[in-house]
């Protein structure tokens, strides 16, 4: 399996995970949050970019893991 294939597999799996989000483990009170987080006084707009930054950070960790694996 070449590197690109492994990456594609990982991405496809992660995308599948997205669809599994709400069925059980997460506290979801949509009525409380409101559409576009209207009930959160705009604080959703603070948290959402943080999640985005975490994604970028994690992508860099994955990059580091890859290099660690290759170096070995």
């Amino acid at each position, binding site marked *: *399996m*070449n*590197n*690109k*294939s*492994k*990456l*594609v*597999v*990982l*991405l*496809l*799996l*992660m*995308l*599948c*995970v*997205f*669809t*599994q*989000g*709400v*069925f*059980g*483990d*997460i*506290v979801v009170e*949509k009525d*409380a*949050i*409101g*559409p*576009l*987080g209207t*009930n*959160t*006084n705009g*604080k*959703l707009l603070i*948290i959402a970019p*943080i*999640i*985005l930054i*975490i*994604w970028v*950070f*994690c*992508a*860099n*960790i*994955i*990059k580091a*893991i*890859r*290099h*660690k*694996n*290759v*170096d*070995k």
Partner: protein
Amino acid sequence: MYSFVIRSARRKRRLKLAVSNLSIYCVAHAVVDAACAALVLSHLSSGRTGMADFAFMILLYNALAFAGQPLIGYISDKYKLSYEVAIAGCVATTISIFLHIFPTISVVLAGIGNAMFHVGGGITSLNLFRGKAAAPGIFVAPGAFGLMIGTLIGKSGSFSIATFAFLLLCCGAGILYIKQPHIDYSTSSELSFEPYPIIVLLLLGSISIRSLIGFVVNFTWKSDLFLLVCLTLAVVLGKALGGIIGDKLGWRKVTVVGLILSAPLVALGSYPLAGILGMFLFNLTMPVTLTAVANLLSGFPGFAFGMTTLALVTGVFITYLPFTAILSNKLIAMAIIFISAFMLNKALILYFNNGFEEKVKKINIHI
């Protein structure tokens, strides 16, 4: 003959280890999730917070508990911590309960505690039968049950600090007491992959997927307690059995077929039976995707577990966006599930056709 006896004895020991670990971690998982949900929701029912603060607390809790897991997972992997993190999670959650009179502090601590417990439990479950989906599936399953109980308790205003604190500390002590499995932190150049396009593609994926989530949470009949329990049990069983059946019959067969069958059932979700069955089939995929991601990020089980929960919470945050209303269209929901099934199928074809499973097995044998 002699080697057969040795193998048999080893298998028994391994099974015993797995049963003891899964038993305590499953109970602890339900208790931790119940405690956190009850704590968060009790802030509103007790009148300590208004609706705006409560909404923010839910956001904050979800962000910490789920988006925090990759970071905690990475640190755990780096310092080779597993059960220690789970115990710390139980303790942090206990402290958060005692600090309930300070809503924001308690929610932050609960989120961090929850994340720590999940990472610790995830690392352990992924290493009970390495490369297999059964144990992670069983570990993940009781979370839904705990959340349901916690939500009911929190909303009813009958949140008991002493009871939850006692249960959490018992769980922590139980984890400390049992024999821990050997955790595999080994890496291999055979399991490496290119990183860069991951950012762009995952972001695109997070946008594409919200429809299903937005649709499914609208089971109006969930207000009936009996049906809510049935739905929760379907989720629990789906996750628990998904790994076991997947390992026996093949990951692709079970998960892709399960997803395809779930699509029309979820679309007919206004009928409780269809919705419940659909959720059961839909959740069969959970342990398989989790284990496959962990195998791909071999040597970093905590981080891998965290990546899947980061994906989960991203999906949830997307449902807060304004255009989710169009997703109540059942045909769109069905289409998204089919797309998801296609993606999973493609991923698993690539996974197996390239001998990835064999490489994981080979590495595990050498440990």
